[in-house]
């Protein structure tokens, strides 16, 4: 069971991940150095723990860089456009929620995901409208949480 494992498939992604982790660890360590207090609170202070976390990340990253591709299985990346569209839709949700309000933005984001997952346009719109309405009623009436109406509608109304 030792030699038969595919050691080439994941080694590139492991090297890239290792290098990125080292970079992240360095940034964390650099930023941690600025956490200083004028007076002594405890022997360790606020910077020790973040430094430990950066050491752990650096250790993992270093091992991956030197000895990549051992252990777990990986799957190849696929459908990059889908991924980008989905992340963009989620960002748009965060940005537009205040402006367009809960109902319109939720409708929009659910629709994007519905279409990306292979739903037919009309069916996807209908189910998105249904889900948004149910969620709105649930949060507003049952849980008493005000969801944004949207500044667009407030101004015109």
């Amino acid at each position, binding site marked *: *069971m*030792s030699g038969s494992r595919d050691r080439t498939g*994941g080694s590139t992604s492991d090297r890239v*991940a290792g290098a990125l*982790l080292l970079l992240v660890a360095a940034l964390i360590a650099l930023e941690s150095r600025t*956490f*200083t*207090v004028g007076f002594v*609170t*405890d*022997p*360790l*202070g606020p910077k020790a*723990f*973040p430094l*430990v*976390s*950066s050491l*752990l*990340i*650096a*250790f*993992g*990253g270093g091992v*991956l860089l030197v000895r990549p591709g*051992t*252990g*777990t299985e*990986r*799957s190849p*990346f*696929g*459908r990059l456009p889908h*991924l980008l569209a989905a*992340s963009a839709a*989620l960002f748009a*949700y*965060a940005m537009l*929620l205040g402006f367009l309000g809960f109902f319109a933005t*939720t409708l929009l*984001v*659910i*629709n994007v*995901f*519905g279409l990306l*997952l*292979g*739903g037919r346009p009309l*069916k*996807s719109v209908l189910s*998105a409208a249904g*889900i*948004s309405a149910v*969620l709105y009623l649930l*949060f507003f009436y*049952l*849980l*008493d*949480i005000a*969801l944004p109406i949207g500044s667009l509608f407030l101004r015109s109304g």
Partner: protein
Amino acid sequence: MDAIPLLLDGFAVALQPVNLGLALSGVFIGTTVGMLPGVGPVNAIAILLPLVFAAGLPPESALIFFAGIYYGSQYGNSISTILLNIPGTASAVVTGIDGNAMTRKGEAASALAVSATASFVGGTLSAFGLILLAPALSRWAIRFGPAEYFALMVFAFSALSSLAGGSLAKAIAATGFGLFLASIGFDPQSAVPRFTFGQLRLLDGMDFVVVTIGLFAISEVLLMLEKTEPGKESVERIGRVVLKFKDLAATLWTMVRGGVVGFFVGVLPGAGGTVASFVAYTTEQRIVDREGSFGKGDPRGVAAPEAANNAAANGAMIPLLTLGVPGSATTAVLLGALMGLNITPGPLLIERNPEVFWGLVASMYVGNVFLLLLNLPLVGVFVKVLQLPRWILMPTVVALSCVGVFAVNSSALDLVLMTLLGVVGYLMRKTGFPLAPVILGLVLGPLMEKSLRRALALSGGEWTILFDSPIAIALWILAAVSLCAPFLLKRRLVGEGE
């Protein structure tokens, strides 16, 4: 035994109409999400957290609900595995060996009945184990000082990193990432802001709900985008699901053994349902399989892992409730939930919040009865849910995640962070990094830092305090052994193979 009056008090909590309803809906939701590939108990609990917080449920009710989802999902998992050979999560993979073979022989109804009964036996047995073990463990852990706590948490991390399988380097990096996320915000001891980059919202730290939903739910949806919709799975009509006496007689002791094995494996940090079901299956095979019928549709091959993974789900509650140190992603999410409800799990929990502990134990009996009564007749309904198209299911998960995350702080920044963490979680899954250590790091990080700094403040900066007591030394040794275990085991396996 002084446990009986306490357990009766627990039943008084569990039998309140609200809690009965929550246990029922918990096991129902759990069964449903356990079946659906890509939802699972962690995502379900993470997505429902904001709703539960908003509804203002008392902690014992929230825990009864979430625990119901957790052990209900272990059963739901087996339905999709037995009928379609699609395990919802890894802990049902072993069930599929004999379960799906039984389905192919036309014995699906029998397999489902055995699985439901085994879940019931495993669940109730392990609830009994919880009564025996948890109070004793917390009486012992009450003497833990900050140094012992720190060592215990290091042990939890090393056990989770090595027992979960996969690359140790990746697990260690993931732990570091979780600890980093935990350190964002005001340092409670010196009031220095850390990694906030001038964002006021970040002074309170990363919200647990945001991280969990982003890392688990959003990344799962992003992964789903890559898979094309499979053709409609055809499920043959299943007859009435009733347990036949013949099956019960053949599997009862298997269920009991599976439950006991599962419970003890579940108590170990990092092991959980997957290891439990595997160990129970192989043990049972060694003990009873004389004709070599395991793997060819033997009901005992369904009973052993099913009893074990349900028992493991309950066993995993022990380190969570008595030590405050969870051993898996799901229990780490439960810890975060309890903290959000102002309950700090740990040795004092059973004493200070008896209604939470005993209410939970009693609700496990109630919930397991519900599972048995509900699921045998309703298997057909659950199978319908399984055929729900992905383009309705996954967008619903996204919408619930977005609204839930927004509802926590009414902050758009939280939604951005959720998206970023979703992409990070997706990349981690794609490259084989485990997610559980991140969540464990996030919930344990603050406690770990506090106990380390308190220990060093007590000793005036002397690091030797960390190794000062026998308990602490034992925990350090356990941590070291669990880190080395995968290497030793691998060497032995390789040695045997050559």
